[in-house]
């Protein structure tokens, strides 16, 4: 068995950072309050001063802080990303999570000793792509896109010179991260450049006939919920549409569902995964406490040779449905 895997937890706010560390996170990941990270939501993320305090709190308890600077700066705005990198390095974060080649290049050139991780937003899904980032920028860990089976991950492990991190819980986006402009197409706000997927400011729920509720993103109808049905957040890749070959509206991409790899932890450890990531910087402190504790217990159980049991987290999942997604079987594709 490989070295002890790291539990990487979301910290959307300073309070969530402390909660995650207290609940057993080996590391937390967070971002600044601007477009430099992929969860650029109002009320979320850190000022430089808050991050300084957060780093001290985490380091004081043996946990690491990973700074996500994982969006793609459009030409003309690069200085915001450059400043974020410089600030992160100055505050002593343990790693910077990058996606853009320009940002990676700047960070590697300017701060050659700073540890870099490759974000899932870079969509590096082959050993060759991963090796490119390792060779060019000295990337030490890659966060894999959620599209590979465990056996495929295992074979990648043997072909790359860096660590592997995989998501184990949380939102389950269907599109390759970093390669999706659907939100921009619908709203004029870009996931890659602005760090926002389905911006809340453009979400509406409107009454429809028969007591139903229509969810909208911008002007676009994304889903319809009958009276009494729980209305989900309108994300384009979890919406319902019609098409020529289907009689009824259907979830063309995926149903509202969350990833939960709790039952597969032992298999993932055996495959050589070095770090397990929990998604959800936008989620509540209660979510962070419960999910981090559950996965802390699960990983410890695996390391002690026991069967992991992450308990019942279904109430915390989107649409109260969970999936093992692509990890379990090729038939997910």
């Amino acid at each position, binding site marked *: 068995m490989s070295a002890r895997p790291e539990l990487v937890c979301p910290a959307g706010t300073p309070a969530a950072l402390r909660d995650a560390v207290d609940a057993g996170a080996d590391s937390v990941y967070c971002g600044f309050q601007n477009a430099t990270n992929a969860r650029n939501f109002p009320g979320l993320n850190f000022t430089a001063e808050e991050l300084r305090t957060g780093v001290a709190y985490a380091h004081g308890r043996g946990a690491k802080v990973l700074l996500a600077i994982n969006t*793609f*700066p*459009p*030409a*003309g*705005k*690069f200085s915001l990303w450059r400043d974020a990198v410089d600030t992160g390095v100055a505050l002593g974060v343990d790693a910077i999570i990058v996606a*853009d*080649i*320009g*940002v990676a*290049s*700047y960070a590697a050139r300017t701060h050659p000793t700073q540890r870099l991780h490759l974000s899932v937003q*870079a*969509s590096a*899904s*082959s*050993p*060759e*792509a991963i*090796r*490119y980032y390792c*060779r*060019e920028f000295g990337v030490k860990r890659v966060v894999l896109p959620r*599209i590979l089976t465990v056996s*495929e991950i295992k074979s990648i492990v043997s072909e790359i010179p860096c660590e592997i991190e995989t998501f184990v819980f949380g939102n389950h986006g*269907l*599109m*390759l991260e*970093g*390669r*999706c*402009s*659907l939100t*921009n*197409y619908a709203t004029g706000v*870009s996931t*890659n*450049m602005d760090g926002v997927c389905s911006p809340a400011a453009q979400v509406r729920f409107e009454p429809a006939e028969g007591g139903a509720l229509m969810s909208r993103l911008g002007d*676009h*109808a*994304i889903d*319809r919920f009958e009276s009494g049905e729980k209305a989900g957040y309108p994300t*384009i890749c979890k919406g319902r*549409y*019609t*098409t*020529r*070959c*289907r009689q009824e*509206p*259907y979830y*063309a*991409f*995926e149903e509202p569902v969350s990833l939960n790899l709790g039952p597969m932890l032992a298999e993932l450890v055996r495959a050589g995964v070095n770090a397990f990531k929990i998604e959800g910087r936008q989620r509540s402190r209660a979510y962070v406490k419960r999910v981090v504790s559950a996965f802390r217990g699960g990983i410890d159980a695996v390391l002690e040779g026991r069967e992991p049991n992450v308990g019942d987290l279904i109430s915390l999942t989107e649409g109260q449905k969970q999936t093992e997604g*692509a990890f379990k079987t*090729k*038939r*997910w*594709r």
Partner: protein
Amino acid sequence: MAGCVQLTLGPLLFHWPIEAKRDFYARIADEAPVDVVYLGEVVCSKRAPFSEPHYPEIAERLARAGKRVVFCSLAEVMLRRERQMTAELCALTDYEVEINDASGLAAIGGRPHRIGQFFNVYNEETLRHLVHNGATHFTLPAELPRDSVAILADAARACGVTLEVQAFGRTPLALSARCYHARAHGRVKDNCQFVCEEDPDGMVLSTLEGRDWLVINGVQTLSYPYLCLLDRIHGLQRIGVTHLRLLPHALDMIAVARLFRGVADGILEPAEAQTRLLASGAIPALTNGFCQS
């Protein structure tokens, strides 16, 4: 500068029967006023074996007609066969290669190559790094704002490389590992039976209110309206864009290319060209896409 912008025919994103493909490129070779033709499967590796045996003949015919032929790599690489395809493509010596995923950058080993629109080039730092790796030509992602395109055009000129943007065709919006064509037909990618061949311009998704909105092409999602930048050609030329990409659709692409050439050469007004384009009835809706200024 007017008149010197080059027109390119981008890679065919959809799955057409090989006979249709051969006829299409034969006509392009003989009649289309395009300078560059991109060949190769970008979207789905399962489709590639149908076309591969025919590419030498197609490429040779295009080259004989004076077109510059470029072979494109897959936009998404994860399976063994996809890695193999990318490695083989990057070993080509007779033709230029366009890379659409970082997998290709490792394989190309610093030899001259192009960077395609599926590769995230958003800023000058990225462009310069890739030039250092051997890139000579860039096609930018469709969502880049015009101001950023202008800055990148300056950077490209300073580096001695050329710059292309998509000017016609449905806009690629997303890629996935899951095949949504197969899913719509109750199948999965491994037993898709190439059902995407039924939709030569993609499968339309409409909202619950009946508005045609998105288009599915296997693992890819595109816009329903066709991007059309006829009225931006001169502006794009002015800021230093050197090439305009027309993405192939199942309509008279010769006529489309002639309209774009006519406007670029200043012998046709953009509004007149757009009227003629719509008059054919083959295009359901036009948009100027992410290009907002």
